C-alpha cells in the first residue's frame, strides 16, 4: 500500500491509551500482551493490557490473525444420503492489529502476495479487508534483529495504516493510508500537531538501529548466485545441524505454507487448513513414495532459497523481513543470515557447481 499524506500528531502515553480505548469501542483490537511471562499478540479487552514500547517483539508474529493456525475452509454434512456444503462465515467486525513491528507489517504484505494474487483466498481476503494495521517503529534492535541487513527498516511504512514512532517520551503518530486516517479522524483531545522536524527524526532512528545490527547485508545480487549454486555441496554442511523441527517456519511472519485435511465422521466434517512447513519430510512426499526433497539438506535449502533466491521479479523484496525470530528460537542455533553469507561465499570461491 502506497504511503499517502495523512495527519501527523504527537501523543503522550496517556493520550495514546485514550486513543486505544476509543478504538476498542468499535473494533476488535489485537495487541502485544504478557501471558505466562511471554509477550504474545492477543485480542485485548482493555487498553491498559497492551504492551506498547520503543523496542522488543512478540514471541510469534501477528500473522495468525489473518492466516489462523487452523481453520475450516468449508463444512459438510451428510443428510439422507445427500451432501451439503457450507462456507464458513467471514468476519464482520473490524480488526485493528496494534503495535505491530515494521518487519511484521511487511510480513503481512508478503502474505498478501501469496493469498491475494491470482485466485484469491476468500477467508484471507475478507479478514485483510477488515483489518487495519497500526505499527510501532523500533528505536532499538533486539540481539536477533536484522531487518536493515535484508532491505527492510525499523521505521518502515510498508503494510502500515498508522505508524507510531517513539520520540523522547512521546509518540509520533502518522496516518499513512485512508484506512489509517479513518482510525485517527480529527485527532483526540489535546493532541499536538506534529511538525516537519518531528518527521525528519525517522532517518536518524533508522541509522541508529542499523548501527546495532552487526550482520549482513544480504545483497540483491546474491539471489542469482544462490539459484545458480542450487547443487553446491555447501548445503550438506550448512544444513547439518538442522533438526527439522520447523519452528523457523512457524514463527516466521512471511511463511505461508499450509496443509489441507478432512476432519470428520459419518455425519459431518470440515475441510481444514493448518500451518505447514517446507522443512517437514512429508510436505513434498508423493503418494507413489517418490519425494523430491527426501533429505533435510534439500528441505533447508528450499526454505532459505524461497526467502532469498526464488523470486518471480528480480526487484521484489526478499521474502525474509529480518525479524530474527527463527534465529532466536532455533534449537540448533542456525542463523539464516550467516547461512546465506556462507553459502554465497562458498559458491563464489569454489564455483557454483562445486561439490563443497
Amino acid at each position, binding site marked *: 500500500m502506497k504511503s499517502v499524506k495523512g495527519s501527523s500528531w504527537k501523543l503522550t502515553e496517556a493520550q495514546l491509551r485514550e486513543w486505544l480505548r476509543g478504538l476498542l469501542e468499535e473494533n476488535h483490537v489485537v495487541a502485544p500482551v504478557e501471558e505466562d511471562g511471554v509477550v504474545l499478540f492477543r485480542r485485548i479487552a482493555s487498553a491498559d493490557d497492551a504492551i506498547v514500547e520503543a523496542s522488543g517483539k512478540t514471541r510469534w508474529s501477528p500473522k495468525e490473525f489473518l492466516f489462523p493456525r487452523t481453520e475450516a475452509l468449508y463444512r459438510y454434512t451428510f443428510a439422507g444420503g445427500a451432501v451439503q456444503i457450507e462456507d464458513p462465515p467471514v468476519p464482520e467486525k473490524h480488526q485493528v492489529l496494534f503495535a505491530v513491528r515494521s518487519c511484521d507489517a511487511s510480513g503481512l504484505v508478503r502474505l498478501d502476495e*501469496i493469498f491475494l494474487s491470482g485466485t484469491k483466498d*476468500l477467508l484471507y481476503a475478507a479478514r485483510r479487508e477488515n483489518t487495519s494495521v497500526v505499527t510501532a517503529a523500533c528505536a532499538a534492535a533486539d540481539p536477533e534483529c536484522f531487518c536493515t541487513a535484508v532491505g527492510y527498516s525499523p521505521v518502515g511504512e510498508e503494510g502500515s495504516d498508522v505508524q507510531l514512532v517513539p520520540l523522547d517520551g512521546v509518540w509520533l503518530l502518522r496516518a499513512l493510508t485512508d484506512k489509517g486516517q479513518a482510525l485517527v479522524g480529527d485527532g483526540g483531545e489535546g493532541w499536538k500537531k506534529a511538525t516537519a522536524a518531528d518527521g525528519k527524526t525517522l532517518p536518524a532512528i533508522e541509522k541508529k538501529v542499523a548501527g546495532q545490527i552487526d550482520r549482513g547485508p544480504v545483497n540483491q545480487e546474491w539471489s542469482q548466485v544462490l539459484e545458480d549454486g542450487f*547443487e553446491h555441496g555447501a548445503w550438506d554442511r550448512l544444513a547439518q545441524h538442522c533438526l527439522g523441527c520447523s519452528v523457523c517456519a512457524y514463527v516466521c511472519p512471511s511463511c505461508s505454507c*499450509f496443509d*489441507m485435511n478432512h476432519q470428520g465422521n459419518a455425519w459431518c466434517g470440515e475441510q481444514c487448513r493448518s500451518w505447514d512447513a*517446507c522443512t517437514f519430510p512429508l510436505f513434498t512426499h508423493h*503418494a507413489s513414495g517418490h519425494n523430491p526433497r527426501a533429505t533435510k539438506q534439500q528441505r533447508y535449502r528450499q526454505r532459505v532459497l524461497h526467502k532469498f533466491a526464488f523470486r518471480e521479479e528480480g526487484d521484489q523484496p526478499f521474502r525474509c523481513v529480518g525479524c530474527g525470530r527463527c534465529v532466536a528460537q532455533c534449537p540448533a542455533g542456525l542463523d539464516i543470515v550467516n547461512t546465506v553469507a556462507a553459502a554465497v561465499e562458498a559458491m563464489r570461491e569454489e564455483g557454483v557447481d562445486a561439490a563443497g
Partner: protein
Amino acid sequence: MPLADAVPNPYHPSLMRIQDYTDETADVRTLKLQFVDDAEAGEFTGWEPGQFGQFTVFGAGESVFALANAPWRPNGDRDLAPTIECTFRMVGKVTSALRAMSKGQVIGFRGPYGNHFPVDDWKGRHLVFIGGGIGMAALRSAMLDVINRKSEFGDIVILNGARSVADMVYSDEMPSWEQVDGVEVVRTVDPGGETEDWDGQVGLLPNVFEGLGLDPENRIVIACGPPIMLHYLFLSLGKVGYSPEQVVTTLENKMKCGIGHCGRCYVGPFSVCRDGPVVTWAELNQLPEDY
C-alpha cells in the same frame, strides 16, 4: 462491493455423481462423473487437455487427478451435460476411500487448474505420446482431442508402457484409437512383465521409443511418467536428435490447494499447480532438479 463479497471460496467443491467406472487394472480405476446440480453444470466452463482437478471424498480428503477425457468446451459441438473422467491408482487414504465408492455416490470436484497442452500449436505436426503407467492418464485428454480432430494433425503414435501386462491402463479402449487412420498404438511392458500370449513389445519405454526410429523432423513428443522414466527418456530424445523445444511433459508434484498458495509443489520459483503442470523440456532445463 466489498472484496469479500466479490471473492468466491476457491475451496468450495462442486458435487459430482459417479455415473460409471472402468477398472483398468487391479488398482487403477477410471471414473465417469456428472454434476449433481444442473445450474453448476450450466456454469461449468470446461477445460483444456493437461489441466487437472481436485477430487474430494468427503471425510477422507482431496486428491489431484488429471481431467482425462476429451476436453469439454462449452462452445463446442456438444449439447450434452459436461462429463468429467479421471483415472486414479489406489495408493493412499483418499484413493482407497474413492475406490470403495459405488455408482450413484457423490464426490466433490474443484477445478480445472493449471495450464494446458498447447494442442492448437501442434496443428500440422506429427505427434508421439509416451505414457509410463498411470502417466497415460495425464495424456489421455490431449490424445483423445487430437484423435477426434485427426485431420488437423500429422501422424499420431501412442506409446503405452507398463510394468507388466496386468498393469497396462486403457487396454479396452486402445483398439478404438487405432481404428482412426494415421494413429498407431505401441504397447510395451518392462522386461519380465510379459505373459506367454503377450503380442506387444518388451522393453523399457526409452529403448522402445528409440527402436521406433521416428524422424524428429516436424514432430512433437508429449511424455508423462515417473521421474526416472523421464530422465532416461530425455537422454534418448537428445541422442536421436530432438530439441528440448519439441518435447512437452507434465510435472506431477505433490499438490494440495491447486491455486499456487499452499507452497508444496514449488520447483524453484515455479509453482507446478499455478505455472504448470505442462512444461517443455526446454523450460524444465531452466528449473532446479527438484521434482
